[in-house]
């Protein structure tokens, strides 16, 4: 009998413990499927962040280390110096990357580090219990903005992809969404492109993935996907912000 589908070897046979409706599972699989298809699982090294995905190494079949809060890009910079031909990536959420780790991500881009960062933006701190992130939308209720985020008190949400795209070392920057099968397919292409940029040593590759957090948003999984489309995408437009000619 012909095999038409196989679950990727990149995902270990371990039950995911993320909340129902969380998109981490999709993002994990996209990264691992891509490495598997490219034959890079044995040569990949990942850095897990602080956040719900700190335990992602339980599921991902590649060598991995944990990082202190926000420091994954500095750690990946060190790893890449020792193993210049490994497929090195960081996987970071928005509290980790867009708040406490802004210096590390900006300067990894600034140096044009030759690794990939997958940025899970769900507009909230997940693991610590739903506090405001720098990416939290105006009016969005969190445990530290009970009445909704106000611009006067907290400023406007930060658009990381747009900011990084101003840095010349960040040669590939794209924002994708994990809300629909069509967008997930586009996200997979972006992941593939990011690893190609790394393989060709062109510079820093960054893929932002708009994601959901039903538990902390206080919405059902389906309503979460709808809110992602109706509110998040409006403020965080999808698209390619920078892309090198060498990679199609």
């Amino acid at each position, binding site marked *: 009998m012909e095999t038409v589908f196989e679950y990727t070897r990149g995902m*270990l046979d371990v039950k995911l413990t993320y909340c129902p409706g969380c998109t981490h599972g999709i993002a994990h699989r996209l990264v691992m499927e891509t490495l598997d298809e490219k034959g890079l*699982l*044995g*040569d*990949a*090294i990942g*850095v897990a962040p602080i956040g719900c995905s*700190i*335990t992602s*190494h339980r599921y*991902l*079949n*590649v*060598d*991995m*280390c*944990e*990082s*202190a809060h926000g*420091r994954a890009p*500095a*750690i*990946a*910079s*060190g*790893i*890449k*110096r*020792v*193993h210049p031909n*490994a497929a090195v990536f960081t996987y970071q959420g928005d509290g980790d990357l867009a708040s406490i780790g802004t*210096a*590390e991500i*900006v*300067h990894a881009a*600034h*140096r044009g580090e030759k690794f990939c960062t997958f940025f899970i933006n769900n507009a909230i701190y997940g693991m610590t219990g739903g506090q405001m992130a720098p990416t939290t939308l105006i009016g969005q209720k969190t445990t530290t903005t009970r009445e909704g985020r106000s611009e006067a008190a907290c400023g406007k949400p930060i658009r990381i992809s747009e900011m990084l795209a101003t840095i010349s070392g960040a040669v590939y920057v794209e924002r994708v969404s994990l809300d629909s099968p069509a967008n997930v397919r586009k996200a997979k292409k972006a992941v593939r492109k990011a690893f190609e940029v790394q393989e060709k040593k062109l510079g820093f590759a960054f893929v932002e993935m708009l994601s959901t957090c039903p538990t902390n948003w206080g919405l059902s999984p389906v309503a979460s996907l709808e809110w992602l489309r109706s509110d998040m995408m409006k403020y965080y437009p999808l698209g390619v912000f920078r892309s090198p000619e060498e990679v199609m």
Partner: protein
Amino acid sequence: MKEKVLMKGNEAFGETAIRCGCRFYFGYPITPQNELTEYMSANLMKAGGEFIQAESELAAVNMAYGAACSGGRVLISSSSPGIALMQEGLSFMCSVQVPVVIINVSRGGPGVGSIQPGQADYYQATRGGGNGDYHLIVYAPSSIQEASDIIGKAYDVAEKYRNPVMVLADGMLGQMMEPVLLPEMKEALAEEDIPKVKPWALAGHKDKREHNVIKSLYLQTEQLEETINGYWGKYETAKKELPEYEAYNLDGAEVVMVSYGSTSRIVLEAIDLLAEGGIKAGLIRPITLWPFPYEAFDKIGESTKAVVSVELSKGQMLDDILIGTRGRWPATLVSRTGGVLIYPQEVAERVKEFLEGVR
């Protein structure tokens, strides 16, 4: 025959590390250790290594963690306030048992403090500084030659114990020049040999083994306790294997001074001054600050009436001296702080005064 070279401490530290197979350095400018960072930028690449001027000490220590957890031989360096910023990474590396060598060319503190030599980082170095149950192994050289010898040893100790090792120098050792006999150039560990030598390191599983995971988070507290108990044994071993000190003139000494690093050299001159005044004084110079060589105090003879800590701080090492002396002799502190140096005459006068009170 090998020849001595005249080198600034900071440069000799860097050259020694390169010769000992260090191929990765991450640093951030801070006085008085800048020559070390500059030296590595100029010379590490030539030796086939990698250098990054990091955006902060916080990034530098995490780059070091990344390089060390994937099998590289790494050096980082900074000075007191920069070392404070590195505590996150040092605690982390201890928790995941990753070896690295770190040089602290210390200066006066707290806060930004001064840029002149200080020894007020003793607590930071020996009592943690970061969170959790761990120890740094700490060496305190008193000359550039000794620093060079210790850096070579520090890599072997770090890798044997899978633990960060700190070399606690100070601005004086970093800035001064002395003749030094450098170690022979050792071959660095090649990337392809990392999995053999360091099977725990991240190097890609090559579809030949299960994936390696280096983790610090334990949501099950019993697992964390088990992990800490698992590596605690090596600290007990270190306490037996590693303590080092130099004892000078203890026989018949009426007073014994305890001093480490460059300050101990000032004490040696004070000993001569005291001798001129008819007072026989000795010196215990701890070479390891953690584990502290408490057994050195058992070498003190019956003639000794007092023990004096001479350090450039408000009396941090004094705590260890009190532990080591166990009340057998009155102990006191002779010190300056804030980056102010202490001169042999002042040491001699204050020791004499204390001794007269004890008599």
